[in-house]
């Protein structure tokens, strides 16, 4: 469970000089601080930080003048946003219907057996993270897996572990 925002005083303020936060501020200004741009700003922030740290959510809340609870509510509602750091390398297994029919579950089982990861988890050293996607729209290439943003079409559970190691350097 991610920490909650109700202990706002304990959240370490993000330094204003951090170049990453300057970029977030640029996006906020691009949308003229309109509160309806919240989701678009969170997209930008996650693109920069890799996830949405609480102090970034707090910053966005202040700059867009939206209550922290609402920002937190939106950030946790949508699957795309993550409040936890992702693995250095990320494996995404598509579990859309076409991939399901063609054996996505076997791929997930294999990864669970070899790397001890369930969807949403990251290895203790932070090297490898596993996620499942609802459908990445590559149904013609099912079952599809995305390793570090590179699509791997027509995967096979038996080849999975070797491929993950080859692409990311993380061994089972």
């Amino acid at each position, binding site marked *: 469970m991610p920490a909650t925002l109700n202990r706002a005083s304990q959240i370490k303020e993000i330094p204003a000089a951090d170049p990453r936060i300057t970029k977030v501020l640029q996006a906020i200004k691009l949308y003229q601080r309109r509160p309806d741009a919240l989701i*678009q700003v969170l997209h930008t922030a996650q693109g920069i930080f890799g996830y949405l740290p609480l102090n970034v959510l707090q910053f966005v809340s202040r700059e867009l003048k939206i209550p922290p609870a609402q920002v937190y509510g939106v950030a946790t509602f*949508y699957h795309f946003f993550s409040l936890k750091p992702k693995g250095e390398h990320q494996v995404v297994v598509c579990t859309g219907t*076409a991939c399901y*029919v063609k054996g996505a579950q076997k791929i997930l089982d294999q990864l669970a057996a070899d790397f001890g990861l369930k969807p949403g988890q990251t290895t203790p050293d932070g090297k490898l993270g596993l996620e499942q996607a609802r459908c990445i*729209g*590559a*149904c*013609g290439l099912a079952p599809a897996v995305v390793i570090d943003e590179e*699509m791997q079409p027509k995967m096979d559970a038996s080849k999975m572990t070797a491929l993950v190691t080859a692409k990311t350097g993380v061994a089972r």
Partner: protein
Amino acid sequence: MNLQELFNIGVAARQKMGNGQQRICVCAGASCMSSGAQAVLDATNKSLKDAGLDKTTKAIPVGCMGACNAGPLLKVEADGTVYQKVDAAKGQKVVEKHLKTHAILSDSLLFAETGKAPNRAEDLPFFKKQVKIVLENCGVINPEEIEEYIAKDGYMALHKALTSLQPEEVIGEIKQSGLRGRGGAGFPVGNKWETVYRHVADQKYVICNGDEGDPGAFMDRSVLEGDPHRILEGMAIAGYAVGASKGYLYVRGEYPLAIKRLEIAIKQARKLGLLGENILEAGFKFDVEIRIGAGAFVCGEETALIASIEGKRGTPKPRPPYPAESGLWKKPTLINNVESFANISPILLRGAEWFSAIGTPKSAGTKVFALAGAINNTGLIEVPMGTPLREIIFEIGGGIPGGKAFKAAQTGGPSGGCIPEKFLDTKVDYESLSALGSIMGSGGLIIMDETSCMPAVAKYFMEFCMDESCGKCIPCRVGTKEMHGLLTKICNGEGTEADLALLEELAPYCRESSLCGLGQSAPNPLLSTLRYFRDEYMAHIKEKRCPAGSCKMHGAAVGVK
């Protein structure tokens, strides 16, 4: 930009595309791109240069050609030859052999493994049985060049609407065409437009729903990637008809390539004065902004989508009031799906009568389907409404691979149902599918063979709906969870007949008392599999056996067939 200038751009682009210029079209849809289409493009262009052919021939990226499992695809435009599974080396070979010596690389032709691949891809059953309206430019034009769209009469329908039709006449034409919403529910598009038109307000909005959340569906993605201007033009015409000056294009965050091409398209259209102030010098103002979704299936529901555009959690609201009366920021709002907008400009240019002559009397036009699952030719197809399922699956789709038996066709994603073998001759339209307990949906068509277990499929979709339920109303939030629990018991071999009875009692409650379409349709996969494959449920419950051999049964010996 006026008509003459638009016309001139089209003429110039047509000359460039046709006269003397040979084109090698490389499919640059997301699917082919992920299999290395960019390398094919680069290598082919380099080979053309090395061969001294680069003055007359060029390799260009085009949208999805449809046969996604055979990608990357490469088409020699002049001959209509399509090569499959092309890599850089093969691209080079096409230049050296096909272009220079006119020798066809027969072992690389599309569907060569069938042994019956014709030289011209159009002669394949896969293409011959299709009628392309929505996809007519996909795989033909470079989606990143507005001139190529204009060369295919792009923006002429907008010009026609702005200069020679009153908004009422545009709406009348769409109504007369019989076009129904392609997002799934099939509400008549013209009627929706008319309702928004009739509401008087200082500001109205047009929204394009590109939140293609159904797993197993990628029609909208391919249209947005392959022909983005078609959507912009459709939205602008809608804006003129209903009196809106602002449009939002809501696209899934999972579709970065579609977003990129739309951004390019919007920029190009603004530059040529086809979006923005005083469009086509006709005094009409309309602009489009992209909103990137963040992964929530419920945002396909129109009121939830509106909440998401407003930057909030995507939870639905009770209707009425309908968005046509009070939508985005409480203003009258028109929401249509990508494929609906893609049909607008052809209807205006070719006429309502032309359109309504295609398809069936109640479901006019064509439908794009994404074929996936246990089928030979996975990919994107477009057929007239009323085409029998059997023809789609066995002639266009090439049948079931591995000599396995067909079991069910799943339409409509998590809101739809499974159609068994005995109804394969059903002519696909809105009414026939709902009579079978499924829905047309947005167009995902997943084929399942004998190895798919139907209770497990029902459980898969129920899990999806349970996870995606926004939690606002109890019937959906709790109902999907309870039904998922019961289905899990059954799939584990721990279910009883009382569990089945409880499922059948719960399903109608969820369907009838949920706030939005997600909960209302969540029981469909369960009910349709119960209707047609009850014996499989009974085998799990009574014999503790999974007939498809896919469920791990706790109550009996594992893997017994």
